[in-house]
């Protein structure tokens, strides 16, 4: 090959052609920018998590358990410790403003200098160090904002009033969103008993924090003591464990974000492919001339390939630069979810991989139309009717197709680390694009059929533009349609989740849950609730227990045996179990026989498990297992498996015992009621706190409001990413308009020469783009409703309804924007004098 000529030709021809092509390449910029910014953010976050790993845990070692334990159980670890601290943590009601306001809070009673690493940042700054000495409390700043509190005000926890000595602005290693449901209140450890909040059966997490410098010894001790501490029911965590779990959860988040960014890049690449197709078509004569003059097929092909590579490199670098800068804003978008503060940092690997991915995908998508250059006959120079390259599809096109699939699959696998997820991602994407392509083709065929029914010339012309040769309508409908699909889906799923949560709006549904009710209080609480005029809709006893053995294997053995494939939480978690003789309306037996009562606890007890719990425990009807209830072992057999509808507001249980076993076990009660309004609920909560300080109240209205806020924040981040797809769609749109500008100018001028007034040309263009917008939105809406329905019903298992308001708002906005593009594109054409354009043509 004559490389010198190839580069000379690519450069000389590129001077005039590349600016036109560059607009199309701009469509990959957004995708690359998204990938680079998200990957840079991910790298920065991982670096920060590595650097601040100790602050995430606040200690070198943490052991926790839901029941009280003897510190001697942890003696081997204490022997290594330079410092130690204890925490008791639980949720409870807190009263403010002399009992006029109350709210569910997360109480943490601390003894010692925890955290050993990082800090609890407070105002005043020394409050975190002094509150234990002063006997006061420090509380999350959200409580100060919500109740208009000041330092020096009092807060009531149980039966004791504390002075607020500081407000917490940040706790190292904790995400801000954690305070949305139950803001933290730190109290001195020794003062906790005075609150009378901890009653038998109360769900209190007891934690020991140790500062241990010798990591090697610590790990050896954990290895040696693992069986003992697992059997004792401890969950232990080291800095490395914490780092791994935090890293993994954010890896999942950033991988998800990267996949959405990747969709924007694929859309951009489809745009590049269509641009190159148009570019190649406009170059057919040039290719013919070069072939006539003696250039080989590969030489001519390489001239254009060099141009595409060059322009893709520029596009990729611009994208990478924007992405690197955009990374500056990402932490603020996600700050509520981050346990560490992430600073702006230049991440070379993210930039290089972003450029490589952008460049590769852009070139791969460009190759398919570009390969047609090789089929162009030099006879096109002699015969004007031969302006199409040969329709013959080269084998190399199939090879490129396979390379594209492998590349997309490889990227998905890199992000998800799961072959199944990668196949689903690629399969789903191909299906969505194929469906959009199909729907847009059908809509265009429909337009072709109905065009004759319109008497208006301008409308007929506008509709005809959708299916005439060299149109871009299918690609535009597909690319913008996919953006619409993503955004619609996010809004539809969000609104359905909120619908599901807004059960409290329904007068029939419970909206208030009282828990931690002691057996001796239950009658008084019932009377109290009824006296206030509210119903007692449900009241159930709760017994806490842990799984002791499963099919003859101890908890430790189950955790050690990876071939069992039983998740560790099955062994580690504390089960909140109830007992009764009948099923409730959210339950249905799907296997085995329901046993509602037994006469003796010495026999093997027939229990019922929920479908998911049985699946997690890998048990079938008749299998045996045992539970530890406050030191007593209960041998059980699986008598039945229940399908449980968790979407119903009931107290639903994974493990259900029959009557006759747990009646004398330590227990407390949950009572469910319905309060008429938010105002009444606030009053009721205050009265409850004043009358029964140890009982906590969950106001589902408040939960709904908080869930709304949290979902809003999550959906904002996802919508933002989906917007990138839509912006890419608009970039492809702008480029397509620019690429067909000359044809449009010629047509416009021809129409003007034949007597069309300027306004008609504007209307023709506007109608065409309005229809493209309409079709993109229709195709996108049909597919998004289908996908959102499938996700809601099969994955989230919630009732699906179409939220018309967001659907209509998004649709109208997209149609309006695309129509405006068409309108403003037509204006300069309509204003050009016919003669000047004809001369140029």
């Amino acid at each position, binding site marked *: 090959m004559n490389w010198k000529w190839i580069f000379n030709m690519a450069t*000389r021809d590129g001077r*005039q052609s590349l600016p036109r092509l560059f607009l199309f390449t701009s469509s990959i910029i957004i995708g690359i920018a998204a990938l680079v910014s998200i990957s840079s953010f991910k790298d920065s976050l991982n670096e920060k998590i590595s650097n601040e790993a100790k602050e995430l845990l606040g200690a070198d070692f943490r052991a926790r358990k839901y029941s009280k334990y003897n510190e001697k159980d942890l003696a081997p670890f204490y022997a290594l410790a330079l410092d130690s601290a204890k925490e008791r943590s639980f949720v409870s009601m807190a009263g403010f403003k002399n009992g006029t306001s109350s709210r569910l809070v997360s109480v943490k009673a601390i003894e010692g200098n925890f955290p050993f690493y990082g800090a609890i940042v407070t105002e005043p700054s020394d409050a975190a160090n002094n509150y234990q000495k002063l006997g006061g409390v420090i509380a999350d700043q959200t409580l100060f904002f919500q109740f208009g509190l000041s330092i020096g005000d009092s807060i009531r926890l149980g039966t004791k009033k504390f002075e607020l000595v500081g407000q917490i602005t940040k706790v190292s290693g904790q995400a801000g969103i954690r305070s949305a449901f139950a803001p933290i209140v730190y109290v001195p450890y020794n003062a906790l008993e005075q609150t009378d909040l901890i009653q038998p059966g109360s769900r209190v997490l007891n934690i020991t924090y140790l500062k241990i410098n010798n990591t090697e010894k610590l790990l050896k001790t954990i290895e040696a003591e693992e069986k003992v501490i697992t059997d004792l029911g401890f969950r232990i965590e080291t800095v490395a464990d914490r780092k791994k779990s935090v890293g993994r959860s954010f890896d999942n988040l950033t991988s998800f974000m990267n996949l959405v960014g990747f969709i924007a890049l694929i859309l951009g690449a489809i745009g590049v492919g269509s641009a190159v197709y148009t570019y190649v078509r406009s170059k057919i*004569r040039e290719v013919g001339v070069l*072939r006539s003059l*003696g*250039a080989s097929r590969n030489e001519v092909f390489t001239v254009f390939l060099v141009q595409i590579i060059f322009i893709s490199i520029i596009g990729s670098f611009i994208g990478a630069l924007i992405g690197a800068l955009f990374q500056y804003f990402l932490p603020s978008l996600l700050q509520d979810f981050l346990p560490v503060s992430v600073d702006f940092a230049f991440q070379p690997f993210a930039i290089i991989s972003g450029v490589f991915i952008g460049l590769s995908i852009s070139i791969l998508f460009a190759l398919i139309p570009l390969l047609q250059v090789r089929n162009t*006959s030099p006879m096109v120079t002699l015969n004007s009717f031969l302006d199409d390259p040969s329709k013959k599809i080269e084998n190399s096109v199939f090879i490129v197709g396979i390379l594209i699939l492998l590349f997309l699959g490889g990227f998905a696998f890199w992000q998800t680390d799961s072959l199944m997820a990668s196949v689903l991602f690629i399969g789903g994407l191909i299906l969505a694009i194929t469906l959009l392509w199909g729907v847009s083709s059908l809509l265009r065929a429909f337009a072709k059929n109905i065009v004759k029914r319109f008497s208006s010339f301008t409308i007929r012309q506008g509709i005809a533009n959708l299916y005439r040769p060299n149109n871009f309508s299918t690609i535009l409908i597909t690319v913008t349609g996919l953006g619409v699909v993503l955004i619609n889906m996010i809004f539809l799923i969000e609104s359905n989740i909120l619908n599901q949560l807004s059960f409290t709006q329904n007068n029939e549904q419970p909206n208030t849950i009282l828990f931690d009710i002691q057996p001796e209080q239950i009658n008084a609480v019932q009377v109290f609730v009824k006296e206030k005029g509210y119903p007692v809709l449900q009241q159930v006893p709760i017994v806490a227990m842990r799984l002791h053995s499963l099919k003859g294997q101890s908890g430790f053995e189950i955790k050690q045996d990876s071939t069992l494939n039983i998740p560790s939480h099955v062994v580690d978690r504390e089960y909140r179990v109830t007992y009764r003789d009948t099923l409730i309306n959210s339950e249905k037996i799907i296997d085995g026989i329901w046993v509602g009562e037994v006469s003796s606890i010495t026999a093997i007890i027939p229990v019922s498990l929920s479908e998911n719990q049985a699946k997690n425990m890998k048990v079938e009807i008749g299998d045996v297992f045992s539970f530890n209830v406050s030191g007593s072992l209960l041998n059980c057999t699986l008598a039945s498996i229940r399908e449980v509808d968790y979407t119903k507001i009931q107290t639903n249980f994974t493990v259900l015992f029959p009557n006759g076993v747990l009646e004398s076990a330590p227990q407390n009660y949950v009572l469910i009621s319905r309060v008429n309004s938010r105002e009444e609920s606030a009053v009721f909560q205050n009265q409850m706190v004043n009358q029964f300080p140890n009982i906590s109240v969950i106001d589902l209205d408040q939960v709904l409001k908080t869930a709304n806020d949290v979902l809003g924040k999550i959906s904002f981040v996802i919508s933002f990413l989906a917007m990138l797809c839509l912006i890419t769609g608009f970039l492809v749109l702008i480029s397509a308009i620019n690429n067909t500008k000359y044809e449009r100018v010629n047509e416009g001028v021809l129409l003007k020469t034949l007597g069309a007034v300027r306004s008609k040309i504007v209307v023709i263009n506007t109608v065409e783009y309005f229809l493209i917008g309409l079709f993109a939105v229709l195709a996108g809406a049909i597919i998004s409703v289908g996908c959102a329905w499938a996700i809601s019903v099969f994955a989230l298992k919630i009732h699906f309804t179409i939220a018309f308001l967001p659907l209509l708002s998004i649709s109208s906005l997209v149609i309006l924007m695309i129509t405006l593009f068409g309108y403003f594109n037509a204006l300069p054409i309509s204003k050009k004098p016919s003669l000047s354009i004809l001369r140029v043509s």
Partner: protein
Amino acid sequence: MKEIIKVENLGRTYSSGSKSLEVLKNVNFSVEKGTSISIVGSSGSGKTTLLGLCAGLDISTHGDVIIAGQSLKSLDEDQRASLRNKYVGFVFQNFQLIPTLTAMENVMVPLELNRKPNASKIASEYLEKVGLGDRQTHYPKQLSGGEQQRVSLARAFANKPEILFADEPTGNLDDETSDKIEALLFELNQKEGTTLVLVTHDLSLAEKTDRIITLKKGEIFSDSQLKVVS
């Protein structure tokens, strides 16, 4: 004299679906080096198809074309391109200049493809010869039709081809410009000693060549020697 082109039983059939159209049937003739011939005929008679096959732009359905002793049938697509670059020059009815290259760069294309040294100097000389020394940096759209065809002539002759194929070289020009281009074409052809194969329906132009082959319905209708070639 030595034969530079030999056409043997040449035929070309185009197929479209189940239909086929035989455009050329068993055409035989040869062209001697340094002579000029015209191929004339009415529209659809097969002139352009014959030119394309002779120049190796297209492949025959049957028969063969031998250029400078090389059978085109035995060459693949890229070998034919290489042969064109070495032996053949073109002048097209629609000029076929590359719109994104300047006049000078257009002329340089075949020279650079042929790896000739001093391509820009040669291109400049030929543009001077066709009277466009001052328009070298102009793009095709900045030139008139006549000027574009001059650039085309410069591009065709600069590579010193053995054979020049010209397809209706004046077909898109007015009479006055046509006369000038014709004069330039024959002048350069004579000076460079090139074999000229001209496709035209303009009989007055055809009569300026040494020989006229008339095609009718894809076959040679007549083959007239106008001048005695020594």
